[in-house]
């Protein structure tokens, strides 16, 4: 239907996005939220065959009862504290009732009006923009519906996999404080990092460890001076940063067009639910009105109130670790790391922890940190990759790294030997100095031996020697190579160079 082009239609002079975000985080506890069945979000269970992580409660068999997993509550408290939330001293569980084949009990246990964490705030790195956290509450995940048999064959009916049913799910709800898609993505990424550092999830997006649901609408300023707001749209179940950004950006355009076409504005019952089409890169209408569902929330009589006392809270506080944002400031500030190196070390919580353990083992001096970072990133990563392991599990200990750094700094081994030694230490518990000595890596300081190697090298490479005499420094490589070979790499390159120049009569 063509839009009526009357002169009365006000024109939009500017638009402003208003975005709030809900994030579901699957907690990597060993067992599920309300039963001892193993949790699919725990790394040891990622690839479990369908319906193997079940028990009477997960299957909702008659007579089964839920028992709260305290570890999941502790993990949630950690995230809540990191987001600056207040932790409720008492909170409870409610039932959210609805029927669906992936919801075995016919209700989801959640926290409706007494959430565990409330009233926090998060400052975005760089801009320092403050994002309000309305609440963070715990609930249980649902199972999954599929139409594919294991192995990928199509199945005509619906298949239910209950492995995910009952996985602890932390839902974080922000205030509608975002104004751009990029801000939302930045927050989402920072929240992921935070959760990974707090060890509450590995945050693997493809496995659905984090799912995003932005609530998006627009404030439109019109040329008659009025401001109107478009109806809020909730985009469900986005599981990548790319789709999160795409969905918001698409809504920013679509809602303008929708308003121009129908003039609908925000109001009671106007909220719609949309999904994201990852192929067409558009949002698709799922449900028109928000109040289509009546979940009949009521307190779950099978569970008791959660009582959080000071002692418990204090124990959880002790488990809090320094978050990546603060670490980054320390790395590039007092520790003097290159931004790129800092980012690379911070990409994995385990790597960052390992790096810091190495710095501590080396005496904790900020001056040592940058060199250790370079060693780990340039040499260590290579050896770890060769062993197909992450660096912190490659076999070398922080004490060994510190010992190796000391040998290098004092000139006992050269760079090439340090590299080889790193590899050896990955495979043995040896003390670095003993290993270097046993392997003949200690730099030879005996001038006569050095002269013999240099003279032999010059004699064997007469052309190169002449070139050097003629000032062609490129020839140094051949000589050096020869000396390195005959010495077994136990020479200091600078000393050798100086010696060579002396012997060809170009010495200083």
């Amino acid at each position, binding site marked *: 239907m063509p839009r009526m082009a009357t002169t009365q239609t006000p024109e939009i002079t500017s638009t402003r996005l208003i975005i709030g975000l809900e994030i579901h985080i699957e907690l990597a506890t060993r067992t599920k939220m309300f039963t001892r069945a193993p949790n699919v979000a725990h790394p040891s269970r990622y690839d479990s065959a369908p319906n193997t992580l079940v028990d009477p409660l997960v299957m909702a068999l008659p007579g089964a009862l839920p028992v709260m997993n305290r570890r999941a509550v502790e993990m949630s408290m950690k995230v809540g504290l990191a987001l600056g939330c207040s932790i409720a001293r008492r909170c409870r569980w409610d039932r959210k*009732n609805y029927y669906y084949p992936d919801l075995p009990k016919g209700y989801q246990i959640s926290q409706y009006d007494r959430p565990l964490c409330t009233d926090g705030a998060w400052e975005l790195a760089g801009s320092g923009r403050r994002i309000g956290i309305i609440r963070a509450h715990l609930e249980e995940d649902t199972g999954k519906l599929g139409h594919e048999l294991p192995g990928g064959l199509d199945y005509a009916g619906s298949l239910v996999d209950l492995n995910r049913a009952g996985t602890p799910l932390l839902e974080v709800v922000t205030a509608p404080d975002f104004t751009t898609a990029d801000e939302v993505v930045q927050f989402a990424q920072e929240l992921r990092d935070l959760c990974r550092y707090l060890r509450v999830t590995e945050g693997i997006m493809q496995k659905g460890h984090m799912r995003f649901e932005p609530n998006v609408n627009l404030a439109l300023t019109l040329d008659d001076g009025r401001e109107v707001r478009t109806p809020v749209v909730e985009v469900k179940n986005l599981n990548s940063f790319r789709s999160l950004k795409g969905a918001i950006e698409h809504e920013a355009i679509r809602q303008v067009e929708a308003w121009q076409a129908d003039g609908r504005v925000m109001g009671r019952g106007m909220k719609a639910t949309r999904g994201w089409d990852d192929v067409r890169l558009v949002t698709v209408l799922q449900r028109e009105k928000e109040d289509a569902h009546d979940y009949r929330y009521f307190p779950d*009589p099978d569970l008791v109130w959660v009582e959080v006392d000071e002692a418990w809270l204090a124990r959880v506080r002790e488990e809090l670790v320094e978050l990546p944002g603060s670490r980054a400031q320390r790395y590039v500030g007092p520790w003097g790391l290159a931004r790129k190196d800092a980012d690379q070390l911070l990409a994995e919580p385990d790597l960052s922890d390992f790096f810091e353990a190495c710095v501590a083992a080396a005496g904790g001096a900020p001056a040592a940190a940058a060199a250790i970072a370079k060693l780990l990133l340039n040499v260590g990563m290579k050896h770890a990759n060769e062993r197909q392991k992450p660096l912190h599990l490659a076999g070398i200990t922080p004490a060994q790294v510190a010992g190796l750094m000391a040998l290098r700094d004092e000139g006992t081994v050269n760079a090439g030997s340090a590299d080889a030694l790193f590899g050896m230490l990955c495979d043995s518990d040896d003390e670095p100095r003993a290993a270097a000595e046993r392997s003949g890596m200690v730099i030879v300081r005996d001038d006569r031996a050095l002269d013999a190697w240099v003279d032999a090298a010059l004699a064997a490479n007469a052309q190169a020697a002449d070139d050097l005499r003629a000032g062609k420094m490129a020839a140094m490589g051949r000589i050096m190579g020869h000396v390195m070979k005959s010495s077994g790499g136990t020479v200091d390159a600078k000393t050798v160079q100086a010696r060579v120049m002396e012997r060809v009569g170009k010495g200083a």
Partner: protein
Amino acid sequence: MNRPDATAVAAAIRSGALRAVDHARATLDAIDTANPGLNAYHEVFHESALEAAAAIDALIAAGRDPGPLAGVCVAVKDNIATTVGQTTCSSRMLEGYRSPFDATVVTRLRAAGAVIVGKTNMDEFAMGSSSETCAWGVVRNPHDPSRTPGGSSGGSAAAMAAGLCDLSLGSDTGGSIRQPAAFCGIVGLKPTYGRISRWGLVAFGSSLDQIGPFATTVRDVALAYGVMAGVDAHDSTSAAMPVDDWQSTPPTDAGALRVGVPSQYLRNNDPAVTEALDRALGLLRAAGATIVDVDLPMTDHGISTYYVIAPAEASSNLARFDGIRYGHRAAQRAGEGLEDLYARSRSEGFGAEVQRRIMLGTYVLSSGYYDAYYDRALRIRRLIKQEFDTAFARCDVILGPTAPTAAFTIGGVTDPMQMYMNDVYTVNTNIAGIAGISLPGGVDRSSGHALPVGLHLQAPAFAESRLLRVSELLERLLSA
């Protein structure tokens, strides 16, 4: 009906005077003879019962302790999960359903040497006061087969009263142990909420449900209670309170006993019920007890409160019976969607009373009605608790009738509201979460049959030992 009580049976078997296998076989024979006329049992475990009994005999032969319930034959209400046989809750919805796990009470009973002889019929999903909503046919009262044994634990009560077991288990959400105990002339204990694990009890009203024993004597319910009670890691609502041996509490000194009698319990009772209560009060007074008038004005609000809270919880608890993973699933018809599958499976699987309560519960929890019904019921629940607290400050136990009448005839009560009023004296025990017991208190001969009448004692939460000691006293006074 002239069986020794469970305590005597266990003693005889433990001493070697009676073989557990012989006792089990005799019990199974009695069931085979009498059950067709009563329909107390839905399933009888001939094989596994004899195996369990033989195992007890073997333990005794080996000189090992077979447990305090050695060879005692126990009938289990069909809403309590057992790995032997089916667990159907007397509903078509669960026809053929086999539980892969035992309820905690069943595990504890077995560990104490009990022999589970079968599963008993009940009102469907424990919703009823007459055992007439049972999908496997009505249960009959051993004292008059034209009458109901009460409900919902009617099968367990009838089996006990007919001598078809030594102990039986019921569940009590609003009176479902005590009212059938009264109708069948036996003892039925509803312990404090949280005393006995609900793991394996198919939930009806989770905040009200409690498992309890039927027996012919007070010492027997005490014995069974002692074995089953105590905290269970599988049930968050089970209480971490220590369970004291009731016999470590001294016998009740009648001279120091204060028996509270609420005026609200004295109206609308049949003459035989009034007579039984008067007789009991007379005996207690003669023994030196002080009878105290207490006031429980909220008594009249109990039924309304109950019929908001219990159906609300039930509507959610029974949502799992959706025909997807187990239980009845309607045959698929062309063109039908998921909603139709749910609706037809549940309409076919659940009987009328269950459907009525699911709808009632769904309604009271709906947005816009929650505050007017559910939230208000919770507030009244708190008032009812406070009222009991006040009353128990002035008395040790509260005495009244278990039900206003003796057993009524099968089909005799057709109005649901009239049926619900059967529980007028018992629901508040569950709403307040306190302990209650029904004892045989007299006989109503007005119908030509000798129909038992029950007396109801209530005690504060976790005061089971006191309740049992007073019951023992009253039992002795009444039998003298």
